[in-house]
């Protein structure tokens, strides 16, 4: 594979703008310097048409084989935004940039092509997005659940903020839960819980985790 020389963040964006033109909705660079010398690190954010996702990733592979980190996602109400987070030019002293491709999927059509043909290591992240956002990754080589247990209800997607998200009745107040009844008897008898005076109602609500 021919490798392009190291580019500046703006040059990367220019390449994308030249190739994809109006398909790029937004492209920006964020920078951050820390320590005494404030040496800058750069992140490139590119928001583009959903059809351009795979061509954009191919383009990045042509520039220099990138490292794929993860797919993050935002529930924006009517749409779900997926962010494919890569980094490119690793191995160059302070020359690596994060490159994030953002695409938006309307909730009426939550289908996205798999990128595992370009980046096999993205499989776990794609499986995770399927179960946590309820999107469909077409042609995914392995569409099983990843983290969620098999008995987790179908049609509930933990990271959605609409009616398909975690319902309030699924949130258990941990402090109020007794030992499960369907488990084997513990080898050593459990101590009887000491009669505790429950703390003030308001305080417990907070620790219950549903501070929406």
């Amino acid at each position, binding site marked *: 594979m021919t490798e392009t020389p190291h580019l500046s963040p703006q040059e990367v964006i220019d390449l994308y703008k030249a190739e994809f033109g109006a398909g790029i909705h937004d492209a920006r660079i*964020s920078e*951050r*310097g*820390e*320590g*005494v*010398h*404030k*040496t*800058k*690190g750069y*992140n490139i*954010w590119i928001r583009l048409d959903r059809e351009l996702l795979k061509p954009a990733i191919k383009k990045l592979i042509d520039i220099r*084989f990138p*490292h*794929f*980190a*993860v797919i*993050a*996602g*935002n*529930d924006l109400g009517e749409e779900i935004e997926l*962010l494919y*987070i890569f*980094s490119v*030019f*690793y*191995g*160059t*002293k*302070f*020359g*690596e*940039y*994060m490159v*994030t491709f953002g695409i938006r999927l309307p909730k009426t059509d939550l289908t996205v092509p798999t990128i595992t043909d370009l*980046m*096999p*290591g*993205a*499989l*776990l*992240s794609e499986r995770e997005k399927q179960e946590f956002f309820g999107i469909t990754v077409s042609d995914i080589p392995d569409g*099983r*659940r*990843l*983290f*969620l*247990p098999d008995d987790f209800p179908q049609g509930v997607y*933990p*990271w959605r*903020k609409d009616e398909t998200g*975690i319902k309030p009745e699924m949130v258990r107040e941990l402090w109020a839960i007794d030992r499960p009844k369907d*488990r*084997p008897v513990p080898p050593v008898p459990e101590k009887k819980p000491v009669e505790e005076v429950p703390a003030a109602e308001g305080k417990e609500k907070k620790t219950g*985790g*549903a*501070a*929406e």
Partner: protein
Amino acid sequence: MNGDTTKKSIPYTVPIGPVHPALKEPVMFTFQMEGEVVKSVDFAPGNTHRGIEWMGMRRNPVQIVHLTDRICGICGIVHSLSFARAVEQITEIEVPPRADYIRTILHELERIQSHLLWAGVAAHELGFDSLLFLAWRVREQSMDLIENLTGNRVNYGIVQIGGVRRDISNDQIPLIKQGLAYYRGLLDQMKTVFLDDSTIRMRCRGHGLLSYRDAQLLCAIGPTARASGVAMDVRHDYPYCAYGDLDVHPVLPPQEFGGPHGDVYDRIIVRLLEIAQSINIIQQCLDNLPAGEILWEKKLPKLLLTLKKAQGEAIGRVEAPRGECMHYVRMDGNDAPVTWKVKASSYSNLMSWIPMLKGEQLADVPIIVASIDPCMSCTDRVSVIRDGGSPGYLTKEELTRLSIEKTRRIEKCH
């Protein structure tokens, strides 16, 4: 498991996990075996998923920092540091240089203790329990130092948005230097016991191979990728904390050992050399430790008010002992972030198991699985373990026995 486990023809199905002491971390493996040889592998993580991100999206960033401390029991600082760095970028909070240096010092102390912990586990998986005890005994020095600096052995609670919560006093600096001298004196000895041991070499050299190309394609990171020759290290590639001021290079398996092979042995070499590297980094930080404040804002209500107004998105990433750790945060002017995505280091390394384990013997499974230093609680983001096990499973004793027997066998041939 399904009915496959009882079928009586080749390939045999051997399930290991989900909670299996020989694996150290809860993950379910299903091996298709032909005799002793692994034909194919499947694994299922998620046995300890606690939904920490979901919890975080209902809390404010200062609360989340303490939640991030509890993502992992070994990496006490990397998650809180990644998260804090992401939030600091959104809010444009300037971290005082002294705090950046203190963060770096703890970051590296953590790498020392984590790599030593791993070295002990690796020795145990090979049947060298005396080496396990030696490695864990010398690890105590770094744990004591961390406790001295942060107040805790695990869950340090040192990182705050905008800096660190505890300063390093002038009395503590000689203690750190003492600790560094202790490890410097041990380095040669550690290299000798791990690398000059013919049995360790025979068990690890050429086993659990991960090629350069596979490491790239499967997105491996950290020592796992570096042992396969991929020169990536966030500390070198992407400046953060004090690393922008320092000279850090990715540690690759050196020429004297024949260059990168991408096997278990190379992963041992890389981690041992990284301990030496960490000692140097801490020394550099102590020599150049800037004076000044350690927090952007001491008053919590003011910090919370700034955080509440924050709008935007950012990525915070650091080089954890196991590789890149990355947090994506998006805030929209409310208390809690809209999105918080944690990408722990093992999340990227798990896929590498598949090429590593193919064609290997069952007795080599424990050390190969351990060789990427998997941290399932990071990946699953959880820590609850349930009793289990069924008659069809290999017990920990059996699997460890297989491994120890192989070591003995090899010793006899030698």
